[in-house]
């Protein structure tokens, strides 16, 4: 635990120092990668229990809309508060579905989450008070009551997102090695046995769903803060597909791999868009095929498998 705290603190500091030397476009890319990485971390959390959420975009949308609406209507503009609020709103709004979804496995779970996200998309598109299909803009956030100057905005948003990413990654790592985290892995292998040992599979799956929603909402709020705009596409199935892409690329063994994979996606997207704009998804697909072929357990297996060998 102490080691984890120290290493997380060091990574946090290192990121902040390194971030100060990055050009703005790279700071933005990192900010988006970490924000989206948090959303995908939620999927990885569920994948450890043997299910994949195809509708994680809904969580990002709920968190993003909550942050943007509170910013506009209630005047809550703090960069530290909005992501927490986004996470909480996504968690609370989707919590009633947790016990229902916890009863389904495999493609049924995936399709139900996808259906939920598309229902959310439909509602958002048809709701004019939140901008309909165009969405709406969100202004510049503040930090601890301080207005941010133009030249500092990018660095502050990077620093805040980096902090949330590191803290959530640390907490996720803690969770993965907790009793419930270990039981989650056991559920993926054999849920009948977990029930026969006295563990509640349904409770664990519902809790994981809520935790994934919290991470998704937080990531969505951070992304909206960086983009300054929210629209229903956050909840569209192709957006969810990108989050699943990152989760598959990362595998379920390493939290660090999730953030790295998210960064890889952002880089592939940025450079492919620049050099072959109409076919960047092709490059992405080929990249995923190569990873599945040569690293079926994801990028994380590059170092976790080596570490676990005697």
């Amino acid at each position: 635990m102490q080691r984890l705290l120290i290493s997380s603190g060091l990574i946090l500091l290192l990121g902040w120092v390194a971030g100060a030397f990055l050009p703005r476009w790279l700071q933005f890319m990192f900010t988006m990668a970490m924000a989206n990485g948090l959303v995908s971390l939620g999927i990885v959390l569920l994948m450890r229990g043997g299910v994949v959420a195809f509708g994680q975009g809904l969580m990002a949308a709920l968190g993003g809309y909550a942050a943007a609406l509170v910013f506009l209507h209630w005047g809550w503009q703090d960069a530290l508060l909005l992501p927490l609020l986004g996470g909480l709103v996504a968690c609370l709004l989707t919590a009633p579905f947790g016990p229902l979804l916890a009863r389904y496995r495999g493609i049924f779970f995936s399709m139900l989450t996808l259906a939920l996200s598309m229902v959310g998309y439909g509602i958002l598109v048809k709701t004019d008070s939140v901008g309909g299909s165009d969405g709406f803009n969100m202004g510049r956030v503040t930090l601890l009551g301080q207005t941010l100057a133009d030249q500092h905005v990018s660095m502050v948003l990077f620093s805040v997102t980096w902090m949330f990413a590191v803290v959530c990654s640390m907490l996720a790592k803690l969770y993965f090695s907790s009793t419930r985290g270990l039981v989650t892995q056991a559920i993926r292998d054999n849920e009948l046995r977990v029930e026969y040992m006295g563990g509640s599979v349904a409770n664990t799956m519902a809790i994981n769903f809520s935790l994934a929603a919290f991470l998704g909402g937080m990531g969505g709020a951070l992304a909206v803060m960086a983009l300054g705009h929210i629209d229903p596409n956050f909840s569209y199935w192709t957006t969810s597909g990108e989050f699943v892409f990152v989760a598959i690329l990362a595998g379920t063994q390493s939290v660090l791999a999730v953030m790295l994979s998210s960064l890889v996606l952002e880089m592939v997207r940025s450079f492919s868009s620049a050099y072959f704009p109409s076919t960047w998804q092709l490059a992405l697909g080929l990249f995923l095929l190569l990873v599945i072929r040569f690293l079926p357990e994801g990028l994380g297996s590059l170092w976790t498998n080596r570490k676990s060998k005697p």
Partner: protein
Amino acid sequence: MDEQKVQAMSQAFLLQARGLNKQFGAVVAASDLNISIRAGERVSLIGSNGAGKTTFVNMITGYVKADSGDITFQGQAIQSFTPRQIMRLGVARSFQIPQLYPSLSVLDNMLVALACHDNRLSLWRTAHSSSAHERAEQVLSRFRLLDQRQRRVAELPGGMRKLLDIALAMTGEPKLLLLDEPTSGVAAEEKFPMMDTVMQALNDQPLTTLFVEHDMDIVSRYCDRVIAFYSGRVIADDVPSVALAQPDVRRYVTGETHA
């Protein structure tokens, strides 16, 4: 018999099944089963394939619900309970095909069992605490699996998987242990050493054991009562030497039709 007498009787037995019936389509798996087990007994359930032994075990552990009849454990009716609720009362089981977590190590399998049994699943408390390791290793050592603790279960040979399956059931220190064919799939020369290990491990705590078994040598050696099943009915219930000598048992179970 009045209600008070029935209750007093069911409290005298650890487990009691009364008038259990179960059918799967046209197949009768349990037909008016009346079985009572006292604390501390080692009972073997024998019978040919499809005789209803595993169905009986599945009904006790809540995996299969009886069509009618009552099951009481320590005087408490459990026929409507879930497997989890029944386990919490002190009933544990192993399976004919070991039910393990193949992608985890042997030690992690034990830690999952301990975490579930303690019913203290936490979001932050580590599963790998020194006290949990110590408890897990104690059980593994009783089943002679301590050397294998870091191996992934998927890499273990069949006999060791069987032992681990039973070890998992034992982590909760149950009052009643049900073993479903503990030696099936184990090489002939390994059966007795394996059963010796199991019985030695079980001796360390007060326990009532029910095991489904096909090998009559194992039955004669390790149990003090035999219940023989045929077509969902009990055809014999006695000490091994008497039960195994009964004509119906020889005809329908051991296959000695001309003896």
